[in-house]
Each structure stands twice: as structure tokens, then as C-alpha cells.
């Protein structure tokens, strides 16, 4: 079992505009009203880079920066784990479209934005962070893979680390074969020891067998959880919002699970 303290949360999704407002919805204090995810490019990026970023990178940066704001840590000093199923889906579509056209004109910016770690690259530029960063994909379980990796970093290296998960729908025709329900970003700043900022402690374990995956009570939030890989962490965020002791089972690869025991820090 691996232990991590949650110091900050970032959240951006349809009808979940920031952790402060989203927390009340996830805690059941306010009804869930879906609305398009709104996000602006980070002011921390130099102007040329700001112009080159698409929605997925904006989502990742905004969620990450919100979590760091709450944690009161300098992002330049903290390692990161980025988790996404499809990376920049608009960019992939435009690349494939250009390559299918007779002239095969590919834009250099589009090409360097096509790497799965584009968000991590822009994050490092925006935050001036030279800390280690990894970019993971585990299809629908990408956020679980990211949490397991982040927890193992804390357990082994003993340094704080941020988990940043994001997904953004493909345009057609890829949307028809891989529908990603909505734009969603979430981030957790995790620390190895309790600090004044810590809101909860997570005990994370890999469970190599089938189990009952945690779901959301609200049908709209459950549809979001089931429809967007990055939103598969919603039950964990809901447990943080409830502020009570709770154990959450997050589905990982091929029916395996992560058992995450959440305890609030008083």
C-alpha cells in the first residue's frame, strides 16, 4: 500500500468549473447541471506557445495550475505525471487529413503538437519546471495508471508529485470509432507527508482482480465518468468532496482495480 497526501485539486469539466464550485456539486450540495467546458490558454505561456496550444493542452494546464494554487507549491519544483487516452485529438485528425490529401502538407507546429507528451512539454515551458515528467496512456484506465505511477513515485522517491489527467473529444470521423463524451481535466498535487495544506490522505493499492468499480450516484455525473477516460477519477474526487472516510475502487487495466482509501485530514 502506498500513501499520498492530497494538497490541492484542480477540476474542469462540463458543469464542473473549478474545484471550489465542482466540489459542491460532487458533495451533493448543489445539483449537477452540465454545460460546455470553458477554458482559456494559460497566461504563463509565452505568446508564441500560447497561440499553438489546443484545447487539450489548455485543459491540462488549467487543471494543473488550479491544483498548484491550492497546494501553495511552486510548480517548477514538482515532478508531474500526465495521463490521457488520446492526447490532442483535434491535432491528430488534422494531421491524418493532411496526410491523406495529395500534397501531404504537414505543419511543423501540428507535428510537434502530435506527441502524446505535448501537454507535459507546454507545462514545463509555462512553469519553468525542469523536474521529471512522464506521460502515460492506458486507454480508459489512463487516470488509474497515472495515479498508480504517482503513488509509486511518492512511495519510492519521497518527493511531491502532481497527477494531471485530461481528455478531449475527437472530431469526426474518429469520434464515431472512439467517442470521448466531453472535455475534462483533473489534477491532484500529492505529497509524501502531511502538511498544513493537506486535505486528505490516500492509501493506494493495486488489486489484480475483478471488483465492483465505484460509480457516481447522479446519472449525469455517472454518464460523464463512464464517457470520458480522464473523468474515471470522479468517484475519487467525490470522496474528497464528501470529506469523510471512503474507499473507492477505480478500474485499471483488464478488470484489475486500484483500491483508494480516502481519509480526510482534520
Amino acid at each position, binding site marked *: 500500500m502506498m500513501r499520498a497526501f492530497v494538497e490541492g485539486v484542480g477540476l474542469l469539466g462540463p458543469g464542473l468549473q473549478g474545484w471550489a464550485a465542482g466540489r459542491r456539486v460532487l458533495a451533493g450540495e448543489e445539483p449537477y447541471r452540465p454545460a460546455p467546458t470553458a477554458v482559456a490558454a494559460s497566461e504563463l505561456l509565452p505568446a508564441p506557445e500560447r497561440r499553438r496550444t489546443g484545447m487539450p493542452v489548455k485543459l491540462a494546464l488549467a487543471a494543473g495550475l488550479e491544483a498548484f494554487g491550492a497546494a501553495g507549491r511552486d510548480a517548477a519544483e514538482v515532478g508531474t505525471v500526465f495521463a490521457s487516452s488520446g492526447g490532442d485529438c483535434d491535432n491528430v485528425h488534422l494531421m491524418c487529413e493532411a496526410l491523406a490529401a495529395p500534397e501531404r502538407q504537414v505543419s511543423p507546429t501540428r507535428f510537434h503538437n502530435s506527441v502524446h507528451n*505535448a501537454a507535459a512539454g507546454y507545462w514545463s515551458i509555462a512553469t519553468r519546471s525542469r523536474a521529471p515528467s512522464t506521460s502515460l496512456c492506458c486507454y480508459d484506465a489512463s487516470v488509474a495508471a497515472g495515479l498508480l*505511477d504517482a503513488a509509486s513515485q511518492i512511495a519510492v522517491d519521497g518527493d511531491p508529485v502532481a497527477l494531471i489527467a485530461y481528455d478531449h473529444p475527437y472530431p469526426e470521423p474518429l469520434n464515431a470509432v472512439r467517442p470521448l463524451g466531453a472535455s475534462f481535466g483533473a489534477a491532484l498535487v500529492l505529497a509524501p507527508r502531511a502538511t498544513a495544506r493537506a486535505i486528505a490522505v490516500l492509501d493506494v493499492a493495486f488489486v489484480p482482480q475483478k471488483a465492483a468499480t465505484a460509480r457516481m450516484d447522479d446519472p449525469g455525473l455517472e454518464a460523464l465518468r463512464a464517457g470520458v477516460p480522464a473523468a474515471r477519477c470522479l468517484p475519487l474526487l467525490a470522496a474528497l468532496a464528501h470529506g469523510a472516510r471512503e474507499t473507492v475502487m477505480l478500474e485499471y487495466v483488464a478488470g484489475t482495480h486500484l483500491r483508494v482509501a480516502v481519509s480526510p485530514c482534520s
Partner: protein
Amino acid sequence: MQPLAISRYSVVNCLGAGSQAVTGAIRERRSGLAPCDFETVALETWIGRVAGLEQVRIRSDLAVYDCRNNRLAQLGLETDGFAGAVAAARERYGAARIGVFVGTSTSGILETELAYRRRDPTSGALPPDFRYAETHNTFSLADFVRRYLSLEGPACVVSSACSSTAKVFGNAARMIAAGICDAAVVGGVDSLCLTTLYGFHSLELTARGPCRPFDAERDGISIGEGAGFALLERKPAAVGAAAVLLGIGESSDAYHMSTPHPEGLGAKLAMTRALESAGLGLSEVDYVNLHGTGTRTNDAAEDRAVADLFYAVTPCSSTKGATGHLLGAAGITEAIICILAIGHDIMPGSANTRVVDPALGCNYLVANREGRVRRALSNSFGFGGSNCSLVLGAAA
């Protein structure tokens, strides 16, 4: 870090299939690069293509995963007795105790590129035989490998461009140290596709002829393809290991998406952290396998970092003149080349390099050098400023 045993490894690229073929090519300073004849690509550039991939048949129970990238993965798993060694480890530890941490940059995106040529003229839909999850998605490779090897532990793909399959060693080492796994399959695959060929061309980073790392007249990269895998285990458990992973260092450039920091700051940080993680001093490294892609800026930045750090003394070279740049598979391929260097006491010279750029300062090997290699450092740097260095050592 606690050193980890590398109890088995396998390698396939344009030099051949298997460590014997690759060692032979290194001894002869042979390059596997040839003028680009891939698919319908019309670019004046050279590539490192793996022969016979078109004839590979994916194991029938996994036929839905069929694509160039997974064919190359299967070829890698069947080379050098790798799948058999993993089966034996599975007997020892149990399938749920072995993780799969593999890297790729473009996975099976070639399938999507080809499917986009066959869109329905009216609806624009992709053809009905297109399989996204099993081919295009970045996770496809890890999914295929864990099924092929019947493993049930943690699995994911690391995709950080050209550092991917160096960084997987870190993910695996942490999972083993945290007690979640007893062993792990690491490595990965990248295969030729139009995205990278036309993409690097758009950045004016592809060489017209075979790439010539560190040459005064170097003019870019030659894109290659390949697979490499390694089985990592806790050291005391593995008897007769091929080599050990001694250290790993990771960093970010915080500079630019496709150009390295001109002074190689990120590269230097990765190397320094790798040596710290191994608990080794600079003089204890006998050979450095450079990232050495062959572009003007990459080689200049890495040279500054390596020459600064190793006082321009430690012998170093890039092997990309022989293999081409395997992109996401470069890290594992060059880690294995370091293991071969250690096993055969040979430091590979730089195929295709004629005259070393006098503006570069590190002790660059053009010819092969024989000599004791106890420890080697391997560099892998990628787009987004993602850097990773590995330290590998002899098993005994």
C-alpha cells in the same frame, strides 16, 4: 536506486533480428540505412526499415491487434528467446506480479493514416474494418504485449516521444521498489508511418542521405523502426543476468517543444541525476551512448552537456548512423547496445560519420574501440524537452 537485474533482452531493427545480428553489424560498422522506399512516401531521405514485416502474421488469437507496430512487437517478443524467458518468470512470480511498461510514440497510427484515404465519400466515415483501440491508440502496444505474454500485473504505455523507452525503466523500477511487481517487461516499439516521415520533413530535420551524427556536414536524422524488450527483476532473484540497471535520471528542458536547450541544461540534469541514482562518479562511466540524432542543434546541445560533464574525456558515440533514429524505441535499443558493449567490451564507432565537427568537444568515436566497458550511460531526449539517461552495468 537498488540495482535491478536485466535477465533477458531482445532487439530488432534494420541491422537485423536478435542481439547476435546487431552485435555483428556493430563489429563490422555496418549501417542498415537505405533510401526511403516506404509505402507511397515521396521524400528524399533514408530510412532504417525492418525487413519482412509485411509477411509477419500476428498470432491468431490476437489478430484484431494486427498493424505494423504490433507485428514489430511480436517479432521482438519472439527474438532472443524473450517470450520464453518471460513465461519462466511468470511461473516463478505469478502473472499478476509482472508489470508491462512499454513505450511508443506513434503506436499503430499508420492504420489511421491509411484509413483516412478510404473514408466514405458521402458520410466521411472511416472504413468498417478500421480498429482504433487495437491499433491507433497509444495503449495498443502494452495491451498487445500483456496479452501476448499472458501477464496480469500493472500495465501502461509511456509516450514521451524519443525518450519513451528509456523512461519505462523508471516506471518499472518504481513499481518493483514499491513492492507492486516482482518483475517487469520494459521496452517498446516504434514503426514507420507517414506522420513522422512527413512531420520531421516539415521541420527540415530529415537528412537527405544517411544520417551522420556529430559530422561537420550533418544535416538531420534518418528515421528508423525497431523493437526492444528487457525483463527486469530484483537482483538477488535473477541468476545469470545479462546486465544490471544501475541508475536512471529524468528531467524536462522547460525551453521549446522541438528544439533542445542550446546549452543542453536538461540533458545535463538527466545525466547528473542518473549518476546520482547509480551512486557513481563521472570517472566510473566507461562509455556514453549519445542520443546523437544528427541534426545541427541536437548534436551541438548534447555535445555541450556531455563535454562539460565528462570533461571531454569519456569515449562516446551515437549509433543512429547504423540504426537510424528509432524515435520512441531509441531508448531501449540503445540501452541494449550498451549491454552489448559491456558484454563484448566494444565501444561502437559512429557509422556514416566521416569528419567529426571540429566545433564539438566530446571524445567522439568514429571507429570501434575495444576496451573494458563495465558501465555505460545511455542518453535519450525527446520533443517537449523530455530527457532521460540510464546507467547500465555488468552483471557480476
